[in-house]
């Protein structure tokens, strides 16, 4: 049961967004521009994978399943393959650039000051641009917010992971602007 009375039965962040539309608007706008805006050299799948990995590190069940399912949808892989990336991205079939960016994401999850000049050099050598490094840091930081928001108010989350997989195609179509109404 959530720590506060939300007056709705929506799971995870959607229940919070319906409860407080004033903060829903900028939160959804942020997710939309970070994860779904196509004016970006990182694919939607790559950005969702960063969000998934940080949510996994923060142990947020709802967020890692929502975004893991979206990453799987965009990247054409199943939930087991996404799980394998979360558990050990170094051994996964990912580009060196994505591995370098996930390493930066893991440092941000601990604390911004953990990101080292060596990690940035590594990402640049693998072909990452400044904007891609910027967006990786901000996506990781943003999920340190979203995860804390969802868990800090003890929202409920469907335990059947297929629920998230089934919803991903529609979410990919609708984007992040309309959560409250669905």
């Amino acid at each position, binding site marked *: 049961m959530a*720590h*506060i*009375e939300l007056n709705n039965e929506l799971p995870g962040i959607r229940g*919070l967004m319906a*409860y*407080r539309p*004033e*903060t829903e*608007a*900028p*939160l959804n*706008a*942020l997710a939309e*521009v*970070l994860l779904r*805006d196509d*004016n970006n050299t990182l694919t939607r799948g790559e950005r969702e994978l960063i969000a998934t990995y940080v949510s996994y590190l*923060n*142990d*947020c069940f709802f967020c890692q399943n929502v975004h893991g399912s979206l990453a799987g949808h965009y990247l054409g892989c199943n939930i087991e393959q996404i799980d394998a990336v979360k558990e050990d991205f170094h051994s996964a079939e990912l580009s060196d650039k994505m591995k370098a960016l996930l390493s*930066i994401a893991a*440092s*941000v999850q601990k*604390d*911004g*000051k953990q*990101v080292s*000049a060596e990690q*940035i050099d590594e990402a640049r050598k693998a072909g990452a641009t*400044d*904007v891609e*490094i*910027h*967006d990786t*840091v*901000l996506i*990781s*930081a*943003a999920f*340190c*917010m*979203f*995860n*804390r*928001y*969802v*868990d*800090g*108010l*003890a929202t409920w989350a469907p335990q059947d992971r297929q629920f998230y997989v089934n919803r991903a195609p529609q979410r990919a179509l609708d984007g992040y602007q309309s959560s409250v109404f669905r």
Partner: protein
Amino acid sequence: MPHIKIENEFPGIRGLFLYRPVTAAPLNALVQTLLHNPHPTLSAGERELIATYVSRLNTCKYCCNIHGAIAQHQLGNNAEIVQQVLANPETAPISNTLKALLKIAAKVQQGGKNVTAEDVALARAEGATDIEIHDTVLIAAAFCMYNRYVDGLATWQPDDESIYDQMGEQRAREGYLTPPAKIKPKEELNHSTKF
């Protein structure tokens, strides 16, 4: 030196906002809604104190200094209260409700699951409303983002306190949505200001 090439003179998150306007818009809209817009019960000063306290727990110098300065200006230019909250919220001259909310904020900073039913019950017993509890959790969570963003890209975080005071005064008055005023180093400020 920042990890990426930021070609403007502004410190902390302001430099990042100018670097990437497309993400600045929702980030600024969020902080404006959380900290500056009218709230049913929490004053802007109280909300800024929550942001300042979480930024201190995350050891983010820029965010702690700028929100401390904004809090000071929102609280009738009272710098003392900001320092007392940072030193120990329990003994600071703030309401018991705010003390209970700051306890929740500290739990959120460590991880969302650390917030217990007892923490929430204590806040309710001190008179906190559901909206206040919600907003405290989201402010604390949001500063776990802003702090990581500012530190994660190794932005310029000035030592000169007068810079934070100028910026804090502007934000307390105007909110977050106006362009940043040109910042003046202390020496220049002393020459140009007559008291």
